[in-house]
């Protein structure tokens, strides 16, 4: 009978030759990874639809971000008749895809006849160039259109560390004195109203604030998603000056069959759009949330399917145990539903603006809630060129 000798792997000898071979292999791996990570810095195309009258860059409003990864495109729709204005902020958190996709839907479909619509699809463009560490998120997802598939990057909640590093131990929000965890310094939705001489992310949020001031934007809506176990979900959060407008929009969404709540912007949580843009500018600041299991703590495998279908059996179980703030069945919360809710919310805000005496913004060409649910988002995105 043969006896097998056990081998102590840790005792296998190495030398300069093994070091050199290993280094060569490591450099090949490095190059391969570098190609992937640098590829994430290439923005996917967004095609300006028939209603876009001009585009601008955020640096046009604050040149401190010109030539940096923080500069980003603004799509502007100017109606023939003057009226009120509305700014849609998509991509504040690039790991919340319905914000970006709703903005893209407006860019590629909306036509404005009265007033002005501004759309920023990638508010934190740096955050689109990476994913959050240790979350095992996909780097992109694909939406099928009648003319072919379109890929969109799935990014991070925060600015890419290569653009802003190191994080402080504690983040001091300068205008309020609020203290947060140091990594929140890269979360643009904790840095408003921003500072011209602040960090990379604070400069970007300052540029957004300057856009609102310089263009005297009437209404600002920031599009987000939240984990199903998070209490502020399927909600509109409004600054106190925007409460009347937001309540009309909520009422309109509920009449269309969308459960949605209205939350007041807390006065003791600083740095967010609905608080700071309302305090530091004249805009009526609103933020909207939809349910996204891909960013929750109870999720299973985090892949493109989860991002797009919003279906997760672990969340179904959590729902059965009463641990969630939204109903969660086997059908989940697909991306079409989330985009449809955001689109309907923006359209209701536009309608409410006129009724509230804020001035009119007449927008057409954008599909409604029922259309997006039945046809899917892809039906309303332009085909890839």
């Amino acid at each position, binding site marked *: 009978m043969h006896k097998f000798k056990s081998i102590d792997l840790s005792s296998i*000898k190495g030398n300069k030759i*093994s*070091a050199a071979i290993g*280094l060569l292999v*490591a450099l090949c791996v490095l190059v391969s990874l570098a190609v992937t*990570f640098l590829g994430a810095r290439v923005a996917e195309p967004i095609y300006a639809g028939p209603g876009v009258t001009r585009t601008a860059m955020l640096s046009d409003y604050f040149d401190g971000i010109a030539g940096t990864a923080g500069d980003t495109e603004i799509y502007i729709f100017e109606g023939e008749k003057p009226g009120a204005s509305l700014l849609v902020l998509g991509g504040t958190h690039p790991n919340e895809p319905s914000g970006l996709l709703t903005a893209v839907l407006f860019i590629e479909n909306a036509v404005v006849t009265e007033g002005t619509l501004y759309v920023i699809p990638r508010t934190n463009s740096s955050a689109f160039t*990476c994913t959050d560490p240790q979350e095992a998120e996909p780097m992109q997802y694909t939406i099928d259109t009648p003319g072919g598939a379109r890929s969109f990057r799935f990014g991070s909640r925060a600015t890419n560390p*290569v653009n802003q590093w190191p994080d402080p131990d504690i983040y001091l929000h300068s205008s309020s004195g609020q203290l947060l965890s140091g990594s929140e310094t890269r979360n643009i939705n904790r840095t408003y109203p921003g500072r011209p001489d602040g960090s990379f992310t604070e400069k970007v949020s300052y540029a957004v604030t300057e856009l609102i001031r310089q263009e005297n934007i009437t209404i600002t809506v920031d599009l987000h998603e939240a984990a199903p176990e998070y209490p502020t979900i399927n909600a509109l959060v409004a600054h106190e000056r925007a409460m009347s407008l937001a309540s009309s929009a909520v009422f309109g969404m509920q009449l269309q069959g969308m459960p949605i709540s209205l939350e007041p912007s807390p006065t003791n949580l600083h740095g967010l759009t609905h608080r700071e843009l309302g305090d530091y500018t004249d805009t009526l600041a609103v933020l909207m949330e939809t349910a996204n299991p891909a960013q929750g703590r109870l999720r299973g495998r985090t892949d493109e399917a989860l991002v797009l279908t919003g279906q997760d059996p672990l969340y179904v179980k959590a729902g059965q145990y009463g641990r969630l703030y939204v109903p969660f069945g086997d059908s989940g919360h697909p991306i079409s539903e989330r985009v449809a809710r955001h689109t309907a919310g923006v359209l209701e805000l536009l309608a409410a603006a006129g009724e509230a005496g804020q001035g009119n913004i007449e927008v057409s060409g954008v599909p409604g809630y029922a259309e997006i649910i039945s046809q899917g988002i892809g039906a309303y995105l332009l085909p890839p060129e």
Partner: protein
Amino acid sequence: MLYVYLAIVLCVVVFIFWSLFTEKKLFAQIDALLVLIPLLLRLLLIK
């Protein structure tokens, strides 16, 4: 502050290179290479 941290990373990378070529155990060399990859990605501000 960025350049201070990059200098620290550079020092660590140099030490890892030195350790890689002076280490006598293969698995310790592999450990060094595994650590080296993310440090180089950060030094080059790729990731």
